[in-house]
Structures are given as C-alpha cells and as structure tokens.
C-alpha cells in the first residue's frame, strides 16, 4: 500500500498522539516496518510531542521492577557462546598487559616525527603482529563534530592480505566485549576510514583494535571469522 504524504502525516500524528484503537495502531506499526517515510514521520511527531510527557509527574518505581529486568537480561550475550571466549581463542589477551617496550618507543618516535595533523588526533592504537612487530598505526581525532568521524590508518610495513581475502579492522570496547567492525582496509599506506554515527559514539572509550583476515569484502557475519593478524591497545594522546 502506497500512502500519500498527507495520509502518512495524519496516520503518524494520530499514532504518536495515541488516540487510535489497538487494531489501527497495530496496522500502522506493521506498515511502518516497510515504509521509511512513515517511520520518519512518526519520529518527527515523537520529537515534537515528547516534551509533553514531562507533564506526567516522576514516580520512583518499586525495586522489584529492576530485579525483574535484571533477571531477564542476565547472561544474555549475542551468539551461542560468550564474546570473551572468541577473543581468548584469537589470542588478543597477550596484548592486555599494555604497550610493549618496542611499541612505546616506536609510538614516541612516530608522534614526534609526524607533522601535526589537522584536526589534532586524540587517540592512537599501534597494531603489532604476533612477534610484537608494529605494523600499523590507527589514529583518530576527538569525536566532537561530524567532520571528525573518521580514523586514519598508516601502514608501517608493506602488508597485504592473501589473494581473495581482505583485512578488516575491528574495535574492541573492552577486553571482553563483542568486537565492532570499522570496515575493510585497503592496500594503501595511508588511508582514511569513515566512522558510522554509532562507531563515533563508541570509539572515545575503546580499549583496543585488531585486524583479522576475512573473505574478500569483509566478514559475512558481522563478527570476525578469520585469524587476528595485528592487534594492540588504544592510548589517549590528546
């Protein structure tokens, strides 16, 4: 069913103000799932009217509500096994102790030699191979404005994935959390990878980064499927 702009706006308004019957509400929710414009209209009305909700006085809920929520979410993680074991298996734990001496020296030299980039960088991760040889430096500016939503990748050595494979960059919010893909990296020595809005919110507090070998174009599952080839912790520099 194709809605006219007027009909869409009226449905969205009445859905948000909440006066319709259960059946009509369910029908609109169903339509919205396949209709981006209807979802956007609902979001616009929500943004407009939600301040009205402040007219309802705040009431502290009884403690049993949180206990029930906690019981329902406890131990729920994505996938069939806890995320931590994936990374334990991949061997990233070796880097948990912090920067290796070689890394720290290299980082100091690298930062000194680097022409002051614009915008100024706030964090850096030096990614090393399993012999602790640094291979790539990832840097990013403070995520204070939309034009800063990117990371810069500098290759320190010539490295390329095997034929038919891609390197994929991941960030690791904590040593035990699910990795989040930042995308596939190319073969150039200097690259810029754009961040999604969600990644931009997350990146200031992340713990580490890693690169895995994935099928060409990146992991088909959204999670690492191949071996970790480079990894390292993140350090704030600004």
């Amino acid at each position, binding site marked *: 069913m194709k809605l006219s702009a007027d009909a869409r706006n*009226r449905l969205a*308004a*009445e859905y*948000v*103000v*909440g*006066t*319709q*019957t*259960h059946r009509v*509400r*369910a029908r609109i*929710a169903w339509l919205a799932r396949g209709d981006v414009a209807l979802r956007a209209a609902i*979001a*616009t*009305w*929500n*943004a*407009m*009217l*939600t*301040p*009205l*909700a*402040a*007219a*309802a*006085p*705040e*009431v*502290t*809920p*009884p403690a*049993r*509500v*949180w206990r*029930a*929520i*906690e019981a*329902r*979410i*406890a131990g*729920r*993680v*994505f996938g069939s096994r806890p*995320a931590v074991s994936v990374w334990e298996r991949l061997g990233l734990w070796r880097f948990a102790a912090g920067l290796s001496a070689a890394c720290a020296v290299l980082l100091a030299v690298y930062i000194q030699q680097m022409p002051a980039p614009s915008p100024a960088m706030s964090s850096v991760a030096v990614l090393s191979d399993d012999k602790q040889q640094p291979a790539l430096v990832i840097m990013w500016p403070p995520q204070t404005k939309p034009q800063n939503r990117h990371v810069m990748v500098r290759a320190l050595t010539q490295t390329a994935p095997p034929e038919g494979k891609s390197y994929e960059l991941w960030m690791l*919010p*904590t040593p035990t*959390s*699910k990795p*989040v893909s930042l995308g596939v990296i190319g073969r150039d020595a200097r690259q810029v990878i754009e961040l*999604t*809005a*969600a990644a931009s*919110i*997350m990146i200031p*507090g992340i713990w580490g980064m890693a690169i895995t070998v994935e099928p060409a174009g990146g992991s088909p599952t959204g999670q690492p499927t191949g071996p970790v080839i480079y990894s390292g912790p993140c350090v704030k520099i600004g």
Partner: protein
Amino acid sequence: MTPEQNAALAALLARCALRDQRALADLYRQTSSKLFGVSLRICRREDWAEDVLQESFVNIWKHAGDYAAAKSAPMTWMTAIVRNRSLDWLRRPREQDGGEDFEARAAAIPADEPGPLAQTLAGEDARALATCMEGLDSKQRQSITLAFVSGLSHAELAAQLREPLGTVKTWIRRGLLRLKACLEQAGTTGA
C-alpha cells in the same frame, strides 16, 4: 535535557548495545522515575505500569543497537518505547469484556488537563512546544494533552469531554496540524 545529558544517555545506550549490563543499570537509575511516571499516567494502575516499565527496559536492552539509526534524542526514543508499550497494553483485546477495568480507569481520569505546561516543560524545545500549545484553542489543547499524556482514545475523549466522536477527532487533527505549523515556524522540529 542538556546536550551533555543527552550525550551521556546516548553513550549508555551505545554500551547497552555492546551488552554492558552496568550501562543498563545506570540508564535505569537515571530515567526510570520519569518513564514510570509516563507509564503510570497512561495505565493508571501501578501493577500494569510496572509490567510496562519492565517490558520497556528489556526492549531498550534488546534494541539499543538500533538507537543510533533512530536519529532522535535518547529520552525521546525511550519515551516512545514506554508510551507505545503502555498504549498497546491498555488497548489490548482482552478475553473478557474488561468492562470493570474501563469503569475504574474512566473514574480515575483527571477532569482537568495537567498543570500549566510552561511550568512543567523545561528546555528549549519544550518551551517552543509550550508556546505553540498556548496558541491552540483550549479544546484542541485539552484533547491533545489528554490523549498524549493520559492515553485517552478518541472514544474515551468523546465520553470524557461529552462531545460527539467526530468533533473530538477534528479538534485533535486540526490542533496537531496547527501545532506542527507553529513549531516549524519556530524552527525546532527535528532538533
């Protein structure tokens, strides 16, 4: 909500998307009183509002990963989840007639609209909304407020205001259109 508060709540939602249970606990601590108030006002029964709040937070936990794509303020996103749950719960088709519930609810509906909006609504967007609400006819303002804040359906509004159903529907529809035009002029939509 200040931009700092919004950013802090958005960061908690991002951590929830990564299955950080402490982030959900923080989020609950900071927002549950407000959201329970919203649900209680619509459900008008504590036990129902408690169930709604529980379902809503389980949903927030499950769908926190979708938050960034929603492009709205965190409280707007969470309030919409709580209001939708409350309304769905309230309007759900029931096994029995549910006449008793309806009677009890109707008796509990406050006759007046909630207190002066300008006093309860803080923040820039809210001030613009309050100003535009003041510009509506009193009937339009009353029916929109009773519908949005107290969760009254068209039929309940007609009964409450002792007006024909068609009249109430028209008030709401025209009132919402005027409100939208006024807010667009004030340049606050989508903010």
